[in-house]
């Protein structure tokens, strides 16, 4: 084999590799192979970074505990939570992919808009604050802070924050629990608590929670740092 023959072969091999690379490269370059590209259906309503919408329907997902988000996806798939669009989205999705999506949104750094000032009367808001911070011992309503943390930013791994959410979203969710269209994994502790609240109390605490500024430390309370007053199926045993 002569030197030029070898050089010829090398050139041919190089050209082939180059051509192959070009074909494959353009094939994949067209559609980015990223999770963000894959989940356009999620981000079109919840935002590229899970920042959510200012309404009662597509809440912020960014920075919420990963296990909480994963459980919500499982709940929609199993029919424990009812929202036709979400049920349509997750109907046939495998666990691993749902977990990956939950992890993506949990890892996003939330952007906090200043909360809208509440137009409700001060006494109404005080009642909300009272319930959030102390509950109502006589009617066995625990304080929100007992499970969702003193800063109300949730508890790792599965209890969500209550701040940074629109008023309508909070009252919709508590209403759904009271009405039996939202369930969590058994034992469903939130169903128990929501059933003990009156519609007025739901409105009051939603109004107060949605008007609060974010604390300096926005991270959920560390796992195991709170002793929960009720047994919750969502918390890992």
């Amino acid at each position, binding site marked *: 084999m002569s030197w030029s023959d070898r050089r010829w072969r090398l050139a041919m091999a190089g050209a082939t590799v180059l051509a192959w690379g070009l074909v494959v490269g353009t*094939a994949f370059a*067209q*559609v980015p192979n990223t*999770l963000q*590209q*894959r*989940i*356009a*259906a*999620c*981000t*079109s*309503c919840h935002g590229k970074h899970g920042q959510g919408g200012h309404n009662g329907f597509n809440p912020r997902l960014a920075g919420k505990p990963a296990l909480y988000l994963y459980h919500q996806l499982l709940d929609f*798939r*199993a*029919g*424990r939570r009812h*929202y*036709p*669009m979400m*049920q*349509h*989205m997750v*109907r*046939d*999705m*495998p666990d*691993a*992919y749902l977990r*990956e999506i939950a992890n993506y949104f949990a890892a996003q750094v939330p952007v906090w808009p200043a909360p809208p000032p509440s137009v409700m009367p001060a006494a109404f808001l005080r009642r909300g604050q009272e319930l959030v911070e102390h509950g109502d011992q006589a009617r066995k309503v625990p304080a929100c802070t007992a499970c969702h943390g003193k800063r109300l930013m949730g508890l790792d791994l599965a209890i969500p924050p209550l701040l940074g959410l629109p008023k309508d979203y909070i009252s919709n969710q508590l209403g759904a629990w009271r009405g039996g269209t939202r369930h969590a994994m058994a034992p469903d502790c939130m169903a128990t608590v929501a059933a003990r609240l009156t519609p007025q109390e739901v409105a009051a605490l939603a109004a107060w929670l949605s008007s609060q500024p974010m604390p300096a430390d926005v991270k959920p309370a560390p796992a195991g740092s709170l002793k929960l007053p009720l047994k919750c199926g969502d918390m890992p045993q």
Partner: protein
Amino acid sequence: MNTILRWRHVGGMLVGVLATSLGLSWMVLLGTPQTVDKPADAASQSAQVARGAYLARAGDCASCHTLAGGQPLAGGRPIPTPYGTIYTPNITPDMTTGIGTWSAEDFWRAMHDGIDAHGHYLYPAFPFTSFTRLTRQDVDAIYAWLRTVKPVHATRLPNTLSFPYSWRSLMGIWRMLYFDAGTYRPDPTKSAAWNRGAYLVKGLGHCADCHSPRNWLGATRDNSALAGAMIPQQDWYAPNLGTAQGNGLAGWSRQDIIDFLHTGRSTKGIAYGPMAEVVHASLQYLTTADVVAMATYLMQRPSRPTPIHYSRFVPPPVRRAREDHLNSWVVQGHVIYMKHCAACHGKNGEGQLDVYPPLAGNSSILAASPANAIRKVLLGGFAPATQTFPRPYSMPPFIEKLNDHEVALVVTYIRHAWRNRPATDPPLSTVADDTVAKYRSAFTR
């Protein structure tokens, strides 16, 4: 009024056909083979169970017989029909609420004859009209596998069928009119793959139950087999599975069909709606040989013309449009398309590989019914998750971003752009705003 007239009609027919049909159906019943295929040893028994598990997957038993979030095969999934809701029964081997007391013979009778262990007629929501084509050997294998499933105690919810459909014995008349029991008979002039494909498509896969139009009593007919139909109460259009111009598989290669069935993705289209569920729960698990067989049969079977007017299962109307009127819709639709759709589906509707399907020449878009195109724009969603593609790409829902008229404009546009011509008569037609509103209302709560 209409219903009364119809039932009088049935009554008249009954008198006419009663004598002969009764005789004939007795002959059919007596003619069924009675031998039970019992494997002798443990090894062949476990092979039978494994085969039964595979066949049950191919028949997608679990999809209907499992409630979302419920125990597998314990039933309870509501099946909406124009006559009321049927709740699927528990088919786990539970002795009181399942089919634990059923013999292989009982199970065969349900699958082959559509009659349950108590001698009651089954409703054709259970596709015994397709399963009757299964061999005794295959039905026994499915039975053997079902015996190994974990028994679940789950009482069946009562059906909410309206009168007279709630009267099960009337199924006797229906059966005389529309049901012939009979195992699939291979066509010796066709290849083994063609015959296997026909067995899977017409029998176990029960494709006809969605893809064949149903008459006013919910029966499918051989002369319009797989000719495309609105799926009752679901508002999805199951396309005509013919390969002729304007049919659902027009322009598809055998490989496209194989890819679509096996992975939910192809360069011609991506499975969505109820078909995504079928791919996800059933077809992705078939052997390559079986999927190739189905594609072989679908490519070679005779195409049937798409029925446009078919009683209560008729697809939603489109509006005849004068050409200048249509042109103005297309111009407005184009603006919406460029803003929201072109980034993924391409400026010329060319799509991107098998990730974002082409819209130019896409048989879903060209179908007589605009239902799927409208609902896909409203709902978006993920391609089916399969072993091949466990992390599917998705399309955003536009239900909150576009109003009814905008959706009607953009769907009208994609049905006429790039030399697309929908298989409507006449082809120049616009989508009605209130059709969009109807589909939207089911998803806004």
